[in-house]
């Protein structure tokens, strides 16, 4: 693989998604609501359907991503370096072993769901809880669709992707969120910001790192 070709992916992009009702995974929504393996009664199932119909029109699913080279700096305590972020996270190192690049992405449903849920918290708390579960599945769906788009991009270069890994998972500290959002210009690009307490606002949002490895090496390191 030539250097020029590798450069291809050192880019960035924006993606907007339109979600349809049929894509929302009911089983997952039910699971978020506490139903593990069991099916809710008709009233709750109907409430879930109503929540989906209310939520979809108010969400604006937007994502931004950017490729960065990944360096593993060998020191007394080895650390990872990408996008100006340095971390000693062992869990992330394991996730990224065999990768030469990472994709950073941020995705959000925009402020609409937050407003809708706040409204329901005042008027119908049960609806708020159900909207919350639907929104959780919707943002996962957005991540999955973005992931698929990136997988295809990477595959064109003979590369494969690792499962996405978010700040706050394992020992990958939440504090990297600041650099994370800044390097993606997430505020300007998709309206995603951080609070003092490092919560994302709008709250129905996800940031993650995806490792990019060459097919053969990735397969080997997974053995």
């Amino acid at each position, binding site marked *: 693989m030539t250097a*020029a070709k590798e*450069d*291809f*992916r*050192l*880019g*960035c*992009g924006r993606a907007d998604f339109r979600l349809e009702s049929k894509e929302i995974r009911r089983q997952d929504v039910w699971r978020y*609501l*506490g*139903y593990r393996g069991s099916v*809710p*009664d008709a*009233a*709750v199932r109907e*409430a879930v359907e*109503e929540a989906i119909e209310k939520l979809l029109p108010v969400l*604006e699913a937007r994502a931004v991503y*950017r*490729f960065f080279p990944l360096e593993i700096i060998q020191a007394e305590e080895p650390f990872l370096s990408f*996008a*100006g972020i340095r971390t000693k996270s062992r869990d992330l190192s394991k996730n990224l072993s065999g990768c030469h690049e990472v994709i950073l992405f941020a995705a959000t449903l*925009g*402020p*609409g769901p*937050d*407003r809708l*849920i*706040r*409204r329901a*918290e*005042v*008027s*119908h*708390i*049960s*609806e*708020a*809880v*159900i909207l*919350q579960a639907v929104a959780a599945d919707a943002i996962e769906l957005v991540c999955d669709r973005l992931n698929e788009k990136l997988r295809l991009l990477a595959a064109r270069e003979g590369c494969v992707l690792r499962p996405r890994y978010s700040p*706050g998972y394992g020992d990958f500290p*939440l504090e990297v969120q600041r*650099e994370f959002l*800044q*390097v993606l210009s997430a*505020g*300007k690009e*998709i*309206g995603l*910001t*951080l*609070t*003092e*307490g*490092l*919560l994302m*606002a*709008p*709250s129905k949002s996800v940031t993650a790192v995806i490792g990019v490895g060459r097919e053969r090496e990735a397969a080997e390191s997974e053995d």
Partner: protein
Amino acid sequence: MNTTIERLQNERLFWDGGTGSILQARGLQPGELPETWNLTNPSAIEELAYEYYCAGSDIVNTNTFGLNALKFPGQVAKIAASAVEITKRARARAGRPDALVALDLGPTGKLLAPLGDLDFERAVSLYGEVAEAGTKAGADLILIETMGDLYEAKAAVLGAKEHSDLPVCVTFTFDGKGKLLTGGNPAAAVAVFEGLGVSAIGMNCGLGPVEMLPLVREFAALSSIPVIITPNAGLPFVENGKTVYPLSPGAFAAAMRDVASAGVQILGGCCGTTPDHIRAMIEAVADIPYRPQTEKAHCFAAGFSGALEIGKKPLVIGERINPTGKKRFKEALQKHDIDYILSQAIEQEDAGADILDVNVGLPGIDEPGLMQDAVTAVQSVTALPLQIDTTDPAALERGLRNVNGKALVNSVNGKEESLNTVLPIVRKYGGVLVCLPLDEGGIPETAEGRLRIARKIVSAAESFGIQKKNLVFDGLTMAVSADPKLGRVTLQTIRLIREELGLPTILGVSNVSFGLPLRENLNAAFLTMSLEEGLSLAIINPNNDAVMSAYRSYLALSEQDPQFSGYIGCYAGMEKKTSVKKKAGGAPESASDASSAAKDTSDGKTSASGPDSPESGLKRLYEAILKGLSAPAKELAREALKNTAPLELVNGTLIPALDKVGKGFESGRIYLPQLLMSAEAAQAAFAAVRDRMAASGASESAAKGRVILATVKNDIHDIGKNIVKVMLENYGYEVLDLGRDVPPETIVDTAIAEDIRLVGLSALMTTTVVSMEETIRLLREKKPDTKVVVGGAVMTADYAAAIGADYYAKDAMETVRFADRVFSN
């Protein structure tokens, strides 16, 4: 030479083009803050400004887009001064003494509360600091740009205007659907920012000139002030690892011809445009005649996501957020129970209100503070425009300052004192001003007398710089029971104002029936008569079916309801119902529906007593709560209270039903949504009990205990806390809900002041558990006898113990059980 404002108003001016995109090409790293180059690489910044001035830009921005004290603590003044100096040097070197330096202000990168945690006044001061420093350094005007949130842009404009005398321009970034990131549209932007007195308004970034064109036309059609359009060089794509903007200087210039022809006064570029783009654009539009923006007569009110035109189709203003004559509302205000106000807001919007009146005036209350809290909170649950209703000038100012949108102001009258206090406030913040045609001489008895005062108010407003188009006049509804001819005078006033002044009118309709029985009959008829005279805004109770039916019927009969969609949407299939409330969650509304619905769901089991006996009514109520059917539960409780004492109903039916559900939840047979649906049904039944006790003059039974609930400092997720609140209230506790992002001091001070025995704290993440720990530490120190129960996504029993909590509750039911233990001692 003309002043900067005159030039903005009377000349075609050219702004500069992209900065960030060019600096990146000149070595700025991703993630590196461009503003640092004002100090570390000033020559690169000067060179770019120089190139723009040479290309013909009349206005060049300073390199201060992201400059604020959040990103550059302690360095704002230095960087702003340096940036202005650099741009002035470039202007001198280019030999363009005629050209201008614009102090550039972009978004803070934070979301304002209530969506995020940036306080509005903090945002105002962040912008104010930069504006002051840039003005001191010699900038000619201020540009607030790339704004994706109307509220943040409002904070920026206030910050700029309160710290600088320079003209302020503002441009927004819209997506392809014509929406801002937080939902605003061009009409709302124009309404709000003309009101705030900006010198020019428009769009930048996000889109190319071709994609912008439909929005450009909207701005040109709506705006009375000059329009600025600075697009990107098309929609970018990635090629060989680089972001590429597709439009060449020639292509960009050609597209900008269409923008100029659409009636735009001020043109420039944004990302991807270069000095060559600007040069080509200036050449390309040279033969397109300059047209100044004309004054538009539209009167708009706006919420944060859109604008409503006043004076076209008549609109409903919901009057229920008002303590006058409402015991429950007064109590809520005294207890700072904002959620109660919010429930009134939601109910009125669901019932069809277009605008919400907000009145929180009560003797002995901090009305300005409460007005601010109410306005902010109401706007966290509804996008409707608001009407700030107060006689306290301080409360009016706080309301107008904090409102996200363009509000109506209720009200000013013809008295000198009123004019002199209200007009300056409206002049500063903008708004649609409700004018009462009365003065020191009282209320004129004739329509002509009222018209005379109206004319006086118009000229007073204009002399303060408030345009006539932002005035609406009240016809002054009087009680006909006092004098039967007063109804006619009000109607004549509406007609005269419309015919003679050409202005919209407003009425508080229900005053007309004061002192007479079945007031809604008179209110509905009077509303119809007023609408026929051309009434624009009706202040009514949208929850009242008779009045809303009159309103909707009038629209349908006066060709203002295309295809009868409003009327049919509301009333189709309701022929047999007595109640016509707009869908309340699809639940049945009338008592007979309610009991049959509950019967249907009682698994066919019939009680030993007859179907209409009191026993079967209680049984159905019990079932309705188990099934989580709110509307039937309320109706059944009302029915049952005819034969059953309130306390007996609570202890014999409501509590047992709640207990059954609670135990089911604890044993894992019932899930959270069902638990909460049942809780809501019980709430509805409790409300009926409270109404009944209030009606019979009985005092409410004392709470089992008083509990503080709060989501801790820095945490803004409070759904968990709100679930616990509903459950505790159902189990007979009084909850002092302090909200979210609550500082430890507030919690501790309230616990001391109210002598609270139990505090419940919620935190979502490890980063905010720190605040929880701090709160507990402070509480132990200052009020050691108070127990603390904690919960939240990352909490565990061990974690709770480690930070010193008394108890970890894994869900709402556990919190209730713990409260029972605390208060049974």
